């Protein structure tokens, strides 16, 4: 298993570790619930070094990125970020990513840890331009600071920018605690927050600079356990669970990130047809459990005695104090589903997403 540049720090903080996408990542430091609630009320500091960064640069990069993405990259100005899907020719989702536009023909694609190799191969295979594609994942560490106090915690470390002035899904490059950093107003928690991209060699220095200020403000270091419950409450899908190569954006409930009017892109024909005929074999819905038994990923979903799909993500919500999740189901239903939890059917109601 790969270890992040911050592994020794996590060990000194007595983190429990878990395997994720081939990485040995902190699962939790104190308790998932405490870490989750710290992000909702104050702030949390995350090591996300496992995420991948692919640079696409040089003549034709604009065209290549636009062709790869379902969302409209041509709308981006320098310093802007876009959430988008990469689809295959069948409309299945290769990955869900963030596109950072540095300048004309100069982008970074931030991809899921488990997909780095797949995405790199995919992007290279689609490249018929002069742009160069570089996997910068090993050199780049992503540290996230998320929560309502994150910006006031970060601001004193940033001499050249007022972080509160950076709009949502924008980024600037500047110094944080004397370390050159891309400061991005993005996140995966449903809270205000910042994601910081630094050279892996400076990752420990950046973490060590921010950590005391986070603790001082009442925040906590946060592991992947709470990252999962935070993103779930916020209605954010996780690649590999809520979507995969055989799921289209519409089937994952991500149709708003597909811009069929933007010109040609990979998967467009299939997606256009699916949008027009409304025929999809499955649909992602949010559900809320009505009792304490927890419906988790992989559990079978039933309606009127017939299997209609599976739970793709499910967990107790620390903020709502009830069980929530996503299920991928094959029929249209707006009221209730039943979920097989250890051989017993438990009723769950379909609810609107985001859950919070």
């Amino acid at each position, binding site marked *: 298993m790969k270890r992040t540049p911050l592994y020794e720090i996590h060990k000194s903080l007595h983190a429990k570790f878990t395997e994720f996408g081939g990485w040995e990542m902190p699962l939790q430091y104190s308790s*998932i*619930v405490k870490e989750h609630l710290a992000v909702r009320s104050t702030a949390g500091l995350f090591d996300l070094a496992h995420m991948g960064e692919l640079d696409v640069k040089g003549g034709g990069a604009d065209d290549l990125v636009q062709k790869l993405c379902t969302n409209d990259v041509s709308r981006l100005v320098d310093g802007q970020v876009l959430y988008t899907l990469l689809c295959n020719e069948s409309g299945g989702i290769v990955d869900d990513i963030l596109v950072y536009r540095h300048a004309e023909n100069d982008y970074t694609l931030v991809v899921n840890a488990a997909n780095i190799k797949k995405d790199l191969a995919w992007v290279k295979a689609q490249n018929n331009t002069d742009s160069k594609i570089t996997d910068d994942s090993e050199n780049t560490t992503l540290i996230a600071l998320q929560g309502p106090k994150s910006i006031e915690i970060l601001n004193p470390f940033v001499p050249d920018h007022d972080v509160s002035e950076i709009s949502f899904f924008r980024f600037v490059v500047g110094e944080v605690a004397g370390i050159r950093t891309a400061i991005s107003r993005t996140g995966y928690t449903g809270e205000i927050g910042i994601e910081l991209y630094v050279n892996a060699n400076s990752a420990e220095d950046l973490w060590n600079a921010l950590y005391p200020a986070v603790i001082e403000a009442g925040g906590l270091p946060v592991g992947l356990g709470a990252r999962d419950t935070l993103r779930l409450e916020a209605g954010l899908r996780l690649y590999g669970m809520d979507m995969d190569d055989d799921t289209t954006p519409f089937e994952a409930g991500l149709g708003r990130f597909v811009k069929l009017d933007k010109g040609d892109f990979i998967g467009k024909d299939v997606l256009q047809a699916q949008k027009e005929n409304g025929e999809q074999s499955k649909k992602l819905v949010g559900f809320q459990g009505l009792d*304490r*038994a927890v419906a988790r990923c992989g559990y079978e979903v039933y309606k009127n005695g017939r299997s209609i799909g599976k739970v793709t993500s499910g967990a*107790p919500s620390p903020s709502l104090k009830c069980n929530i999740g996503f299920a991928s189901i094959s029929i249209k239903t707006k009221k209730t589903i039943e979920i097989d939890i250890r051989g017993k059917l438990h009723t769950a109601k379909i609810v609107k997403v985001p859950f919070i």
Partner: protein
Amino acid sequence: MIPEKLRYMESHEWVRQEDDIATIGITDYAQSEIQDIVFVELPDVGTELTQKNELGVIESVKAAFDLYSPVSGEVIEVNESLLDAPEQVNDSPYDDGWFLKIKMTDPSELDALFDADQYQAYIEAEHA
């Protein structure tokens, strides 16, 4: 600290004997490993349990964990307060966080379980 007078399973349940009545819970070590307990699924009063067979399930935020019965016998009481306050298992694993009481069919089954010293050695080895 591991209470002296209890017996322990490899799967981290403890059992307290009073005559032929066994009270069952999970150890402090187990609750600290599981963390954030949100639900405990226990059998109904009257259920017959067999030693080392499944007794119920603990759910944490992250995962579900099976529970095993340290002894054979009939469930005579269940800690109903865990339904509304499962966090008692985290806060007080040896007292308020008990799960159920069993009327044992064969108290000598307890001899096959770890004593406190053996359990201590076992978790040290597991953690090493």
